[in-house]
């Protein structure tokens, strides 16, 4: 017993978060993490009572080597185990985000995970499956600022028995040009500083809106599957997508479909059956908002 809370003995360097479905404990003495974690995660922070069961214990710390001091690096540890190579210390904050994504995608198979964003408003719950670079983070960040509730910008979780989507509502990972674009379009959006030279270029994290964070325990039944693609200069182009193609898009963007086996297949089929499926090409937020708000019109709100 004495060992278990050893990490907390330092007091202020550990944060416990409740994300509705799971509990995360983050420990770090890295300055950048100490600076930005309260800003990004305050709404999920749970100080007392300390949960007896923690799903993921994560440490972001400098390695015990020369690289602690010379061109400093940081390591990601899941309960003492380092699954990745260290990164430059400047990237400590995005490293936590990526590492936590890895934990969920690799270790937690209670849900079927899709490489997809998810947003919800008035009972309309849209899954946005897409490979990296399609602009789903940018799109879901914009929709969140426009009043939609964010489920995730990266890993959308669906419970196999009910086919309901499970929110995580963590910070949105914005990359390169989309950082300035979103800050300019939505002056109220709260962003971290920019982290340069990461594997994905320049990265900044957007804090979830209050509506997103406060309803992180409320699941929703998906109603639409929309595969987005950002095409510069393109006017909005929405096309109905045939169900078999939508199924393949879902499966092709799943992290653990192969592990869930038949229940994964059944869940994906059920989602496609119950959802309206579209592909969407866009370049302007206003047109996208008009389309998405149109989906909500006439809905009862659940």
């Amino acid at each position, binding site marked *: *017993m*004495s*060992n*278990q809370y050893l990490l907390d003995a330092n007091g202020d360097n550990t944060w416990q978060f409740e994300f509705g479905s*799971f*509990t995360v404990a983050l420990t770090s003495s890295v300055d950048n993490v100490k600076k930005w974690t309260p800003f990004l995660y305050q709404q999920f922070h749970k100080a007392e009572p300390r949960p*007896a*069961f*923690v*799903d993921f*214990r994560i440490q972001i710390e400098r390695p015990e080597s020369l690289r602690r001091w010379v061109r400093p690096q940081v390591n990601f540890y899941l*309960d*003492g*185990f380092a699954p990745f190579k260290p990164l430059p210390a400047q990237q400590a904050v995005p490293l936590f985000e990526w590492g936590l994504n890895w934990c969920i995608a690799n*270790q*937690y*198979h*209670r849900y079927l995970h899709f490489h997809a964003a998810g947003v919800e408003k008035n009972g309309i719950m849209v899954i946005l499956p897409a490979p990296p670079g399609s602009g789903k983070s940018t799109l879901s960040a914009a929709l969140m600022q426009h009043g939609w509730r964010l489920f995730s910008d990266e890993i959308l979780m669906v419970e196999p028995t009910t086919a309901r989507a499970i929110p995580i509502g963590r910070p949105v990972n914005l990359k390169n040009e989309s950082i300035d674009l979103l800050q300019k379009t939505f002056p109220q959006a709260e962003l971290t500083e920019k982290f340069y030279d990461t594997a994905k270029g320049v990265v900044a994290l957007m804090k979830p809106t209050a509506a997103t964070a406060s309803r992180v325990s409320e699941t929703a039944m998906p109603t639409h599957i929309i595969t987005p693609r950002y095409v510069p200069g393109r006017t909005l182009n929405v096309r109905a997508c045939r169900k078999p193609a939508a199924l393949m898009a879902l499966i092709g963007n799943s992290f653990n479909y*192969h*592990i*869930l*086996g038949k229940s994964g297949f059944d869940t994906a089929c059920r989602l496609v059956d119950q959802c309206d499926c579209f592909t969407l090409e866009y370049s302007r937020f206003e047109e996208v908002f008009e389309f998405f708000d149109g989906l909500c019109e006439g809905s009862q709100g659940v």
Partner: protein
Amino acid sequence: MVCAKGHRVFETLLSNPFLAKDYSDEQWDQAVRLGRSANLLARLYQLLADSDLLKVVPQKAHHHLVSASLQAQKQRMQVQWEVKLLAKELLSIGVRPILLKGGAYIYANKSAGQGRTLADIDVLVRKCDLSKVERHLKTVGWYSDKVDDYDQYYYREWTHEIPPLIHYKRQTVLDIHHNIFPVLRFRIDIERLMDKVYFDADGVGTLQLYDMIIHSATHLFFEGEFESGLRDLSDMDLLVRELKVEDWLKLKHRAQELRLVRPLFYALRYCRHCLSSPVPDDIWTARDTGTPNALQLYVADLLFTRVLIPHHALAKKPGYRLAKFLLYWRGHVLKMPLSVLVPHLLRKLTRSIAVTKD
């Protein structure tokens, strides 16, 4: 044992799954962490399921057990499929593969194959078939990523296996052996082992139960690394639980015949110590040769009980690092005479310096 704390939290559940009923949320938190680090979460799931105890597991811990079990089941199917393909390939050149360890437990449907995960499939073939097997597999999609000349030389000259083969598409790793232990120090009479192999209709061989136990024991207690030590003990625990009362003496006699008494002695001792395996008290007598003397046993207990644990901060006792260090060197010395070991280590050292300079 009932109020298990700290370092015994996980082993206690493996020994007696019924104690799960009394576990607090905090104990579950520790058990899941320890089980994950020992690669035994899926095993625990299976033991609880076998005794219809999953319902007593708190929901949060249950999710982690299920996750591990799903991954293990996926791997189980992969192993069965991969063995089928391998057997077909080798049959075409007239060779019948013998599976060892995890792959064999899964293929032979042993309880030690339940919730078992593995990094590679271990296969044994006769030494005279080895180069034929390697050549053929390399024409059907398997390659070796040990391209360094010295690595190749080291494997072929001083070990009992060839460099691991990887399938280019499925990324499965095959470890092909021609013996169960590096051939330098002991002459393990591999023919005696192969004589008793059981081949099924598909031409896939597995060792007899006794030999599975003795092989796993030899592997664990002659090696220098114990990262999977507790997992291997748990395998042996489940294997020995399949023995009937009259089988114990046969197991001992088989180890004597193969001259592998010492590793079996240690395996049974620590299975009983760590996992309460039902090993009879009177299996060894004073007249049995090959068993350790009192001093050797004292030292062995000091060392092995420190490393046959989940390698997690919660489970490490004082002296862990020293025990690990000493056993690492013991493993090397057992494998190679100093006349081979010293040049090998010098070679490794100079190479690591050369790499650092880059």
